[in-house]
């Protein structure tokens, strides 16, 4: 799908960010380009140190790029200081002003913009309602819980109606249940306000459940941009497949390419069809990935064979770890039923059949 330039909220063009001087120079961002559409819930996903927060800080204006452009609705904002950018941030530690009440915090941005008092008051009331904090509007921020602080931080960043809202791992300090609640809450807020959200996280599950599109980052580069479905089911390279969800990696000899598919001969001698990552020309040997839920364990002969090494019960499903005869490890995920066990025991000889369309060949 060709992208229309006018519909992009943020365009990052060839941005580099180098920290340090001389020999101790480190490129936190290595020539990154990405377009983020209007009204999109866009996630920057990657392990710590991958450059995702650096990119967010460049968009917010807390740092300036060493090279490249950052366009907001077509206008280069890279040289502007943060207070001149119609972009607001929800900080990881919330950064609420401790000497102000909840309502004063939320109204701060509007007040700085020089909006009349009555307008500020009305907007603050509206935001308090949006995040369901009306009852606590006169509390100090130190007198409310972590989840409530999170809501205030959101309301404060949303109140000036920014063109883009930046969220820097805002859920990482919350406990599991509250985090799940806030994930849904964030989606609702994004939907209701129609503001473009750029969300930074290292939690792949959070990224998959919340995002319209995800950019997977590693060592200062964007490895792949796509919908959660793209990223999970059609990872472009090994790092992406490994980082998102659980994956089995097998080495295979490649023969016969065509129609986006290749014939891959596994170490067990069985040959299967596998899709090839876009734009990739595999040579003789390549890595084949199979998700644990796309393979099936049989007591008879399958595409692969091995011995059950470990069985881990997860409630909804069971993970069965198999040591293949080729000495590679392989995990199969099997849905649990209420009455029956998983049907296998440690040390069992088993076969593994790989479903049609389950295998993919990756760039290493």
């Amino acid at each position, binding site marked *: 799908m060709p992208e229309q330039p006018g519909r992009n909220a943020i365009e990052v063009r060839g941005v580099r960010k180098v920290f340090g001087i001389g020999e101790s120079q480190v490129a936190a961002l290595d020539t990154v380009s990405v377009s983020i559409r209007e009204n999109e819930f866009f996630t920057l996903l990657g392990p710590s140190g991958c450059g995702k927060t650096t990119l967010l800080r460049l968009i*917010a*204006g*807390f740092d300036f790029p060493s090279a490249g452009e950052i366009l907001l609705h077509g206008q280069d904002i890279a040289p502007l*200081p*943060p*207070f*001149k950018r119609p*972009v*607001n*941030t929800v*900080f990881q*530690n919330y*950064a*609420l*002003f*401790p*000497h102000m009440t909840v309502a004063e915090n939320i109204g*701060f*941005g509007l007040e*700085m*913009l020089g909006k009349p008092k009555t307008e500020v008051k009305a907007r603050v009331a509206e935001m308090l309602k949006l995040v369901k904090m009306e009852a606590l509007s006169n509390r*100090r921020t130190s007198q409310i819980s972590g989840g409530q602080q999170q809501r205030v931080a959101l309301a*404060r*960043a949303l109140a*000036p109606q920014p063109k883009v809202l930046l969220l820097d791992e805002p859920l990482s300090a919350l406990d599991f249940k509250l985090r799940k609640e806030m994930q849904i809450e964030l989606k609702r807020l994004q939907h209701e306000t129609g503001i473009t959200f750029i969300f930074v996280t290292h939690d792949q599950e959070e990224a998959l459940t919340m995002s319209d599109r995800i950019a997977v980052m590693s060592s200062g580069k964007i490895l792949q941009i796509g919908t959660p479905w793209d990223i999970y089911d059609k990872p472009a390279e090994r790092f992406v497949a490994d980082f998102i969800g659980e994956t089995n990696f097998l080495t295979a000899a490649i023969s016969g390419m065509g129609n986006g598919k290749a014939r891959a001969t596994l170490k067990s001698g069985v040959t299967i069809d596998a899709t090839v990552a876009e734009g990739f020309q595999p040579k003789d040997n390549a890595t084949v990935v199979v998700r644990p839920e796309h393979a099936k364990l049989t007591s008879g002969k399958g595409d692969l064979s091995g011995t059950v090494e470990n069985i881990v019960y997860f409630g909804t499903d069971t993970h069965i770890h198999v040591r293949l005869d080729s000495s590679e490890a392989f995990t199969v995920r099997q849905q649990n039923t209420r009455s029956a066990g998983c049907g296998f025991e440690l040390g069992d000889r088993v076969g593994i059949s790989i479903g049609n369309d389950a295998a993919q060949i990756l760039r290493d």
Partner: protein
Amino acid sequence: MASRFDIRRQTGFATIAMICFFALYLPIITLVVYAFNAGSSIAIWEGVSLRWFYQAWNNNQVVDASIRSLQISSVAAIVSTIVATMAALATTRTKPYPGLGFKYAFINQPLMVPEIVTAVALLIFFSRIKIWTGYSGLGYLMVAHTAFCIPFAYLPIRARLENMDLSLEIAAADLYATPWKAFRRVTFPLLWPGILAGLMLAFVISLDDVVITEFVKSGGQDTLPTYMLGQFRRVITPEINAISTVFLLISILIVTVFFFISRKKDQE
């Protein structure tokens, strides 16, 4: 729980604590008690009286020295706190660079150079200026006091700035606050208890300085401490006790007021 080390349960702790308390407060208590002595000795008790308070109040030299002390200390405390606040902002709100450590040392120089050295240097320096300008007012003492008060005001302000969450200022900038507005609305209110602490400290340090004052002052510019020191060379009467007691009361009052102001700030 029982095995946890607690210094309060160590043998002798209570004894040591009591000795410290007596060493600190017994002389002060004695001083205050003898301020009310009816006799003219600071060691022999002859009954309760307020006569030494009256006498001090009616002693023009005491009153003049007190007023002079308050003038010098107020100016020195306010000016040094302003300078210290700016210095603290400049040294903490910046990326570390070579030479920053040297700047810390430069600001804190009065803490490291022996006071007597500064005093002699100022005496020589100011006497030159006096010859050139002909001015010989209290300004010299004010400048001298301001200079050595700066590090005392600087330390609590810098400590407060360093403990302050930097993301608060970044958040203010993110919410459209210009650097000046961010300072006025976020940094300054949060820094205020530190500034107040610096101001108090500078005031108290200036108020009881003897060495530098003694060297820098011109004739008839006695501050309260140098006046009292001069009195000790003659006859010692409980008048000294009475003056000290009044000043003790004033400093307790100031510290109490400060305590309540800063506590209220933190609760807000």
